[in-house]
């Protein structure tokens, strides 16, 4: 067995963790969403009067959004490598072997990172236009 085969064998061995890996993109969206919501709730209830300017809050959420987007991008890149589309050109993984399963999980995770990226961008849109708590 060559070294490369060996590496592949290891890579395709059963990945208990990889079903969770599928959720990394959406979890990042969820964390960003929940953090933005909680921060706004606390800020508007405890720190700012209804008509106050909330530029600082908007900047913080903006910074958080950038962090979240970068994290999703990194998860997406890792998933994209696992999918290995550039080498195999495969987009359907319909056969029941380890390689198909491995690439399928990469493919699905890549797509989920895409949706999470868009979802996170959407979350940030109100921050661009809304200037006060009411």
């Amino acid at each position, binding site marked *: 067995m060559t070294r490369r085969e060996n590496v592949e064998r290891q890579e395709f061995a059963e990945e208990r963790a990889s079903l969770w890996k*599928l959720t990394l993109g959406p979890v990042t969206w969820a964390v960003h969403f929940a953090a933005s*919501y909680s921060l706004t709730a606390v800020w508007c209830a405890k720190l700012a009067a209804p008509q106050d300017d909330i530029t600082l809050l908007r900047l913080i959420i903006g910074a958080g959004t950038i962090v979240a987007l970068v994290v999703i991008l990194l998860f997406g890149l890792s998933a994209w490598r696992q999918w290995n589309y550039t080498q195999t050109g495969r987009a359907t993984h319909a056969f029941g072997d380890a390689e198909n399963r491995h690439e399928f999980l990469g493919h699905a995770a890549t797509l989920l990172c895409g949706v999470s990226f868009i979802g996170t961008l959407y*979350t940030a849109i109100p921050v661009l236009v809304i200037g006060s708590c009411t």
Partner: protein
Amino acid sequence: MSKTRTHRIDRHTDPEGPYPPTEEMLAEPIDPELRKAQGERLKKAWAMPKGWRYISAVNNSEVGKWYSLTAFGFMILAGIMSLIMRVQLAVPENDFVSADLYNQLFTMHGSAMMFLFAVPMFEAISILLLPGFLGARDMPFPRLSAYGYWAFLIGGIFVMGSILFGAAPDSGWFMYPPLATQSEGIGSDVWLLGLSFIEVASIAAAVELIVGTLKCRPPGMRVNVMPLYAWYVLVVGGMILFAFPPLIAGDFLFEMERSFDWPFFDPTRGGDPMLWQHLFWIFGHPEVYIIFLPSIAIAAMVVPTAAQRPIVGYSWIVLSAVGTGFLSFGLWVHHMFTTGLPALSLGFFSAASEAVVIPTGIQLFAFVATLMVGRVKMSLPMLWIAGALAIFTAGGLTGVMIAIAPFDWQVHDSYFIVAHLHYTLFGGMVFPLIAGIYYFYPFMTKKTMSVRLGRWAFWLLFTGFNITFLPMHLTGLKGMPRRVFTYPGDVGWDWLNMISTIGAFIAAAGFAVFAYDLLRPKGRQPKAPRNPWNGGTLEWSAETTDHGWGSRSIPYVTTRYPLWQQKGIVERMDEGRYYLPDAEEGLRETLVTSVIDAKPLQVMRVTGPAWVTLWAAAFTGGAFILPTFHIYVPAIISGVLAILCICYWLWTSTAIIPEKTKKDAGLGLKLPIYISGPGAAGWWGVFITMLGDATAFASLIFGVFFYWTASPDFPPEGSIHANWIVMAAAAALLTASWGAMLGSRQLNMNGRGDLATACLVAAPLLALAGIGAMILSVWLPGLEPTSHVYPAVMWGLVVWTSAHVGAGVIMQLYCLAAVIFGKVTPRYDAPLWNVTLFWHFVILTVLVTAAVVAALPRVL
């Protein structure tokens, strides 16, 4: 320690023999005599109880049938209620029903459709179909399914029956306080206790379905080839686990207020009705997708068969299911756009409401693409799917409109919303469900339904539905509010309401035709052919005579559509040339495989017919239903009896020590019969249940923080706080109990049964002392729960945690008995693993409670 464990795994639990099977192995013929004998033994093991004993059956095929017919019955009742409402609204100033009855009718219509039809129907259909999709013999915990069903039946009859006594809940299906908390009579209690009981059954079913999908797939069916339905079941099961617990936590607070006057939602004593709205909708919006996804999953099974080709974009549909599952949790506030939350918060939820359209849309495009590239046969199920797509798309478009907060402010609580939600639910649930019933009817009953009646039903329902609900958009825009029992005649709503009423009766006629066709006796009709639609997935391998065994042998699967893509698979299954072709010991068995790659791990013995599940459900029902009438002592006795029944059931039928360590599973593969720890289905069951339980606890903690943000003084100036020294002692005692539990598992594994017994004697004593100290820590300083929400919520956390520790003590005593009476040995120790896992969650709950009750208020 780890060394011993690994060593043990090698010796006793590793599969032995060749896997995967080679072509030659599968081609080897089986002696016809042997085959016949094997078939007889299997038939006997899986035989249904006869006569009146039939109701003690636990086979997924029977429980699934009862479950779906019961849910269908509740739907008909809730539908009749809607017709009564439509008659009332047909003309202005009508007095067909009183305002009070009308309130009960719309509350019960919504509650029953959601809690007694839509969610249970998903569970019912999945229990019925999932083993078929997976070529499995049964679900992993058949008695749990049966228990869930009987709980559902009892709870459903209780809730539905209340309307006959004029005692039904009448504050709307979302039970907003203060209307619902202050509502007179027992209506609100019926809703809270009856439906909590059913929610528990729902979570039980979700646990079963998740474990079934993860652990009971046929050998070789890796995650990338499992039927799409299984993906949806996994996602929806996960959603139930995170969506229902917040509602259960809310119900807990609500019932505490109703029964003991703890002011969680009473603003005069620091409470806040908004907390209920948050908890309700954190459940309520994912709920919509919990209803929608399983139905669209049926479409994902029907569409490839109609197109006679594999689905296009399998990965995209997985993305769609998982993505929708997540995003649907970011929508709840769009039901609360008019409650005065900060504009920025509304913006976040508006954005997520628009974003969820992306994954939802993707799966519909994948279906359309499959139909475009296939050779479509416009079968009856496909007709219903087509209707579903049309109606759902219309509902989705109004959804995009009302996700915009300013538009929602205009139409909030108007008939526009009624129209929108019925479009999404009919398109997203009712039509695909009926499509599924037509499609799977031959699988479920071995007969076919009438095509002619099916077309009649479709066109009646489709036109009737649109005539009813399309005008409602306009009725709503013209300003008619929901939930009014009548209206004046001069505001331009009359003719629109009359049209809606006429449409409702046309739709009802469609339902009647469908129900007649579904239930009419078909004894004389010939049997349906084996695979009538030429489907490609495993359920269509089912024989035309039901033997109760699911499949004759469990196949080795390497493709998404094995019946199309693996030549000769059905013949091989029939001849018993795959796994588990025999029941040598006359016991019910199914295969347990690994989560990702479905490698065979275990031959699991599953439970058979039993009465104890019925008793357990009846007593659980007593424990939930009696408090409605403030009858507490019999309720407690009933609860104790329920616990005894469950202990008896577990003791006599689970984790039985087998007569040998391994058995032949067919094709030369020898598998262990007993597994404990993370490889076992039971361990996964506990883990998944406790994930849901932890979510409910997290919702209570969310409540504490909510009160802190929502009110200017929480805790109020000069409040009495819990005694932190006593609370610290409680935490220490409970941690010691957890340590003793963990210790007993390790010691037992190392063959030190005597020390393990000592630990199991100490653990419950420490735990009881811990509960006592925890209660003292709030009782001694004199926190008065009825005086203000702050002491109430602290007491609430303590009560919640004590109840969990109490359950943990019962489990520890169970383990103690198991070690003493030899039900647990160093080799066979599943109960210790499962109870230790439970205690991991308990100790987390304890430590968070201690921190929040004793430390946090001093910081805030």
